[in-house]
């Protein structure tokens, strides 16, 4: 067991070092854009990562891991294509994230799990062209700004069945990630006829802190799955590097409450719903950029047709919708997002009732908005899950 699990964990650690590209210009505000570390199945159902039937490796639903009966590993990749507009100008951007990597193994009557999860996305860039008088000549200056940051967490957890219907789970995690900012001013050398060195102002910080998530899940009357979880966190600390002039910082991370349910409406047809609530307003006092911060609520509903088949194999079809408030806004308005989603599951290798390899895909069409600012995006999510390692 150990060799495989350790090898898998090492591989996931390496993948965790892959560069992550931004997905939204809302990442430029406050602590950035919250990212849900969920798989493609949840994405396709508009789910927030809790309350779905069956076992799952989701950081927000630690009790779901108890339903895994085999050693498992999960990799989630997520490319997105977005265009942002303020009514005057439109920018296009794209990128790929790996929001979740996880592994689980049965230990001591329960399931031990490890997750690498993305929590906040802070990447963006900008350019400003100005003019200064040098030697009596108007001279062009160009400021190139880049912010490269993300908050992630590395979690370990344990879940087990308390009764045949009810399970509990607990994960303990540590915040990781870095935040880097650089502003480079380039002055046109025409004013001197000689090279002019760039002005560089840069800073680099490392995130630290701890979080604990506890959850419970149960199945009622063999029809209804219920789950709830809460995540408590220490302050998110940002420690400046030795060469950074800007100081350290700490941010209050609110208690996050989640609840979800899924019900079998008919054989092969499941309805799911989930909600997440967190009050980020206290973070506003910790922010230097004057961003607004507020309490957020996210809701998601979805339908899953589990008896669909493709190429002779089970291939569940999913539809979903979700709506979420964003904690930080680009302006004084309140930011929110609405997403329609569809998804497909594919069993690649199955022995009896055990799915040894499966892939899930989802495609989302969404819109984030705050006042005149709007961002439309397509987002694909691909999960690859292996079991029985």
């Amino acid at each position, binding site marked *: 067991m150990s060799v495989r699990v350790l090898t898998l964990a090492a591989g996931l650690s390496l993948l965790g070092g892959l560069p992550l590209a931004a997905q939204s210009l809302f990442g430029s505000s406050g602590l950035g854009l919250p990212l849900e570390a969920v798989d493609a199945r949840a994405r396709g159902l508009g789910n927030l990562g809790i309350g779905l039937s069956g076992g799952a490796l989701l950081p927000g639903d630690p009790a779901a891991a108890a339903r895994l009966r085999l050693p498992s590993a999960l990799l989630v990749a997520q490319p997105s294509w977005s265009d942002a507009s303020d009514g005057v100008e439109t920018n296009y951007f794209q990128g790929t994230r790996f929001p979740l990597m996880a592994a689980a193994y049965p230990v001591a009557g329960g399931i031990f799990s490890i997750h690498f999860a993305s929590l906040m996305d802070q990447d963006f860039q*900008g350019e400003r062209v100005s003019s200064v008088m040098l030697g009596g000549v108007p001279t062009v200056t160009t400021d190139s700004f880049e912010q490269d940051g993300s908050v992630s967490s590395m979690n370990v957890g344990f879940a087990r069945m308390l009764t045949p219907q009810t399970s509990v789970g607990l994960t303990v995690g540590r915040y990781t990630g870095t935040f880097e900012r650089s502003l480079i*001013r380039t002055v046109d050398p025409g004013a001197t006829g000689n090279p002019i060195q760039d002005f560089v102002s840069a800073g680099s910080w490392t995130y630290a802190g701890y979080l604990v998530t506890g959850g419970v899940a149960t199945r009622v009357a063999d029809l209804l799955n219920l789950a709830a979880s809460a995540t408590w966190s220490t302050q998110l600390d940002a420690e400046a590097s030795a060469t950074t002039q800007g100081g350290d910082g700490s941010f209050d991370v609110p208690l996050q409450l989640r609840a979800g349910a899924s019900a079998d409406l008919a054989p092969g047809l499941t309805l799911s719903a989930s909600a997440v609530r967190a009050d980020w307003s206290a973070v506003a006092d910790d922010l230097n950029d004057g961003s607004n911060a507020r309490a957020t609520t996210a809701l998601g509903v979805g339908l899953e047709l589990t008896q669909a088949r493709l190429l002779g194999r089970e291939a569940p079809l999913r539809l979903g919708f979700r709506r979420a408030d964003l904690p930080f806004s680009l302006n004084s308005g309140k930011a929110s997002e609405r997403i329609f989603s569809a998804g497909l599951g594919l069993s690649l290798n199955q022995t009896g009732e055990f799915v040894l390899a499966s892939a899930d895909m989802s495609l989302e069409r969404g819109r984030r908005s705050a006042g005149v600012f709007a961002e439309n995006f397509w987002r694909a999510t691909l999960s690859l899950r292996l079991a029985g390692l």
Partner: protein
Amino acid sequence: MPRLDGGADTNARDGLLRRIRTYVHKGPVAACLAATLVAVVACQERLPTALDDGQLPNEPLTVEVELPWSAFGSNLQVFGGYGSVSALGLPVVAHTFGGTLESRLLLRFGPYTTRVFAVEAGGSTVPDEDITYVGGRLVLTFDTLASVVPGPVQLELGALQEEWHSLTASWTNAVDSVADQRAWSEPGAGPIVPMSTIIWDPITGDTVSFQLDSTDVARWMDASDETRGGRVETITDGVRLQLTRAVLRISVRPSVDPDTLVEDTTTALLAKTFIYDPPPAAPTGVRIGGAPAWRTVMDVGIQPLTGPPELCTAVGGCPYTPQASDVSYAALSLTSQATEAAFRPTDSVRVDLRPVLSPLRLPKSPLGASQTGGFGTPIAAEAFGSGAGTRVEVPMTSFVRTLLSGAGAGGVAPPSTLALLGAPEPSSLTFGSFFGPADPDAPILRLILTVGTPQVLP
């Protein structure tokens, strides 16, 4: 029911077919997944770009500051004697140029060829070492653009009569080494034995050829003779010629075919130098270049700034000592003055700027890395004549940044003395002149500073 058609082979075939069907089913799925994964990972990234400047940090301030000499410079000195005339690849021949300058070219050629290949009556080629030197030509090529030559020029070639040392010979001394100093019998590499005189008109081309007879050729035949050498001079007033090439071509008659004359057997040029008189007058202000070369050194120390007002506001008040990272550009701004006519440049002067690593050892201090990439900042020749008063800049951003960064980890203070010199050195008999600290157009330190607020957390 038992199978009658046999057996094990059929079972093996069915198993194989089953496996093939499995792969047929799995193949497209796996291929799709692999392609998707590759597409996902290889997807080109494009970061979100801010739609307005409000999302960016505060704009830095870029200002220009010009410091007068008293605010940054001190202890300006001019040193001469760097390098030697013989190292100059472009010798000069002059007569009363600028009213005073006399300059003569000294040449020494290597051993003559000792054999030729002659064609016998049968058509075969044979080496012939029994040859007779019957004459030759000394061919000189001048740079007509870099020369000052108003019309036809009379050039004279003569044979030197005294031992001379090509690396140290000067107008007064034939040998001027540390251990041996011997003056010419006549200043100016005399006396000589006249060999040839020619009138060269520059409009006919850039090459002049002295015809040599067998006596002239025989005079330079002994390679062990230390007096061996030729002197080229002009007796036309107001002329300064810059030589680019000198070639001696010998004509030989082979013994196997006395009716044939083998011409243009090139002889290697062993030594080439020039001697001139009088030396330049003592420098006033800043002098850079010449041969031997002049350098100007000065101490630099940047005083706290008291303006401009927008800078003081941005940094929270003045006086303000700039930080190394504030300096986007620094340059020494010099105002040119007319160079004395005899040494006035006819081509651009390249000025290099280097830190002086050990000022106490001046004028022999080692110098640091070039601030101009080693090629120098080119300054047009006109700046030292008709265009005197032109302001030129020599960049020194790296020097100022290092100076402002203070002592390094080892406690070693950065160089605060700089040297202005020609690039390369020496590159010409001519030199550039600039006004010095005592003049109204004293050197200025031009700074372009950029200050901004530190990057902070959101």
